[in-house]
């Protein structure tokens, strides 16, 4: 269809990432995105290692937010327990990495952590979706899972909760988690402070592009259809239960990736990642940024966490009040979130600027497709 990447440079390159299921299908959008990534990449150069350390945490949060936007915005599954996968991956990485702190070991730890969060999401998803749990019950069940993990991890202080050399550490958390490293045997890289920032940024950009391509693929249409009307979609021969399971599992994997990057940045993970305040944050980001916009959620995560950080530095107690009120007002005043609203304005502005607001071409017959 000609709405999808008809014009501009790199049209062919952009094609897999564009379609009616995502906002921002113009050269201007991609240029803007490139500039934004470049600015983020320049942060450590401009502001030093400090910015890299602080920024890496925000970027890991953004991954977490994106995982929720993906499952909620595109498939209608509102999980209040996205932090469960985030935290489980962090703990899993810690357990493997502490026991095998070599290049190979750390590479395995990274893979194992993402595998654990993925499998965990798949198992929970299977349990829920194949059990007929739907809508609000999914939401509450996921929250309860996060809270159970919070309670459970909180009491693992005793020596019996030791796996090899790794102590789960209870309420105090697991400390001494090594840095990220990739390699086999003696060849490879240990990822230092600055490296960690760029790895996280790279992971965020790559995940964004990957999810974007996915939601514009055939599977993406199936997701969106499932969100819009599950029964109807099943009647078109889609196995919606399976679709939801796959989406939920991918969401778990992305959240897990965020969790690993978060944990390796802090070299520490504790049960508060499962707590009710932590669990609320992804929902806040996705609601404010706009759950149907992956990038909107990322933007909201970065912005809100930055403001929260500045408020904390000033010693203000008002951060949570601000975040909570923001959530209330955004959902009341623009239920779709900021990004979709912005997108509408941009489209309107373009239409105004366009002297001939004739609708874009209807779908052409195959032979007419020229570009």
């Amino acid at each position, binding site marked *: 269809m000609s709405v999808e990447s008809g014009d501009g440079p790199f049209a062919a390159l952009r094609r897999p990432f564009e379609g009616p299921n995502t906002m921002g299908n113009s050269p201007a959008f991609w240029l803007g995105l490139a500039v934004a990534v470049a600015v983020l990449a320049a942060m450590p150069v*401009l502001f*030093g290692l400090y910015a*890299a350390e*602080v920024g890496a945490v925000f970027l890991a949060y953004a991954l977490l937010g994106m995982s929720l936007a993906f499952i909620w915005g595109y498939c209608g599954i509102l999980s209040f327990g996205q932090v469960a996968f985030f935290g489980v991956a962090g703990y899993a990485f810690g357990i493997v990495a502490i026991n095998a702190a070599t290049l190979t070991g750390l590479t395995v730890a990274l893979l194992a952590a993402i595998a654990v969060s993925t499998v965990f999401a798949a198992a929970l998803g299977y349990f829920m979706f194949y059990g007929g749990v739907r809508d609000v019950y999914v939401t509450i069940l996921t929250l309860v899972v996060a809270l159970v993990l919070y309670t459970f991890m909180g009491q693992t*202080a005793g020596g019996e909760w030791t796996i090899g050399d790794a102590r789960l550490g209870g*309420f105090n958390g697991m400390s001494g988690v090594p840095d990220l490293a990739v390699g086999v045997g003696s060849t490879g*890289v240990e990822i230092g402070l*600055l*490296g960690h920032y760029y790895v996280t940024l790279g992971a965020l950009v790559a995940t964004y592009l990957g999810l974007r391509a996915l939601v514009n693929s055939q599977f993406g249409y199936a997701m969106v259809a499932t969100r819009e009307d599950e029964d109807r979609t099943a009647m078109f021969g889609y196995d919606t239960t399976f679709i939801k399971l796959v989406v939920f599992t991918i969401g778990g994997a992305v959240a897990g990736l965020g969790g690993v990057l978060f944990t390796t940045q802090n070299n520490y993970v504790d049960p508060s990642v499962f707590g009710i305040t932590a669990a609320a944050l992804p929902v806040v980001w996705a609601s404010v940024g706009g759950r149907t916009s992956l990038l909107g959620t990322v933007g909201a995560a970065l912005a809100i966490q930055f403001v929260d950080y500045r408020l904390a530095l000033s010693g203000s107690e008002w951060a949570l009040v601000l975040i909570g009120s923001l959530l209330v007002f955004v959902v009341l005043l623009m239920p779709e979130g900021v990004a979709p609203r912005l997108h509408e304005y941009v489209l309107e502005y373009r239409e105004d600027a366009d002297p001939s607001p004739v609708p874009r071409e209807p779908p052409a017959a195959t032979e007419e497709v020229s570009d």
Partner: protein
Amino acid sequence: MFVTERSLTRRSVLAAGSAGTLAATAGCVGEGTVLGMQDGGTNPTAAVLEDRSGTFALTGTAKYRTTMLAIEEINRDGGFLGEELKVFAPDPQSDNMRYQDLARHAIYQEDADVLWAGYSSATREAIRPLINEHEQLYFYTTQYEGGVCDKTVFPLGATARQQLGAVVPHMIETYGDEIYTVAADYNFGQLSGDWVKIIAEEHGAEVVGEEYIPLEESQFGSTINNIQSAEPDFVMSMLVGQDHSAFYEQRLASGLTDIPVGTSTNMAQEREHLRIDPPALEDVYAGVNYMEELPTDRNEAFVERYYERWDDAEYINQEAQNNYFSVYLYKEAVERAGTFEQAAVIEALESGLEVEAPEGKIRLDPETHHVEHNMRVAHADENHDISFDEPRTIEPVFLQEAGCDLTSEAEQTQYEPEAFYEEA
């Protein structure tokens, strides 16, 4: 194998690896910045991260205030090495994530020369990776489970061994040898429970029941039932936090006050004897190194100075006193080292310093970075009036036995009692 040596630690150069780190490849980026965000001043800076809101506000507020009081006193009397110590002291709001952010900010942006931070062990553990990475001098003053053996960390609060070592023998002597332990279900509580068993064993007593209570629990119906059916000679309580303080009211309502309670956590920290109406804490005995009620001249003068400075203050808890004397300890060390340079200050702290604290004279043990405290048993009567027995000096024996010697080996470890004592 209780010491876990790691081949890879935070930001260390990879031992096995031949490849360089990514950080090294970006030559232009160092700790300095292109845009120069760093603070221009040359004054030495202390970062004081103590909670004035959130879960730990009750203890954190007093800790903040005594620290400020000490720094102000010293600044007024000629300063630290003749210089005025600047303070960076935002409120971490009892949130470990904020602690990480603020500690990072203190280290990078404020260039802190010394750090006081946090009440709970969880907080300490949350920021310890940062402390280790930047070799930051750090005073942790809460009475805690013990065992931290770390080159740049000075855990100055009494350890569980010191607190329980004061109160448990006293209770066994006074009431008998059957003990029922009720403790908070987290690291501190569980390790304290282990210590009760170890000390009971040493004194020929026995733990007849043990229960670990989740931190947010404030209903003790079944616990009180269990205690009543076990009929111990006394209860050892290592309950913490405000939710747990409901135990004492429920103890009163269930008629459990005839069984005395020993504690290492209550009264001296969260002033339960003042917050809860008598006689809920009747016959509660606390092992403490300090309580505001301590009737010595030195302490009374200190209390007076404190309330003069902070007229709306409520209570000086044990940790607040620890903060206070640790500032003086720091001053001594800086002066002995002749510089604010952290490695030199740590070396000076390891030279066997002594200061006069409100609790009495204390000595810093060079090998373990812990303090020989003046431990007392404080008793609350039916009106919640406090009386003390004679102080005794208890050394940080556990770490000494564990072989922690930071003067010869720069470890970053936390030891657990179970590796040394069968009972645990």
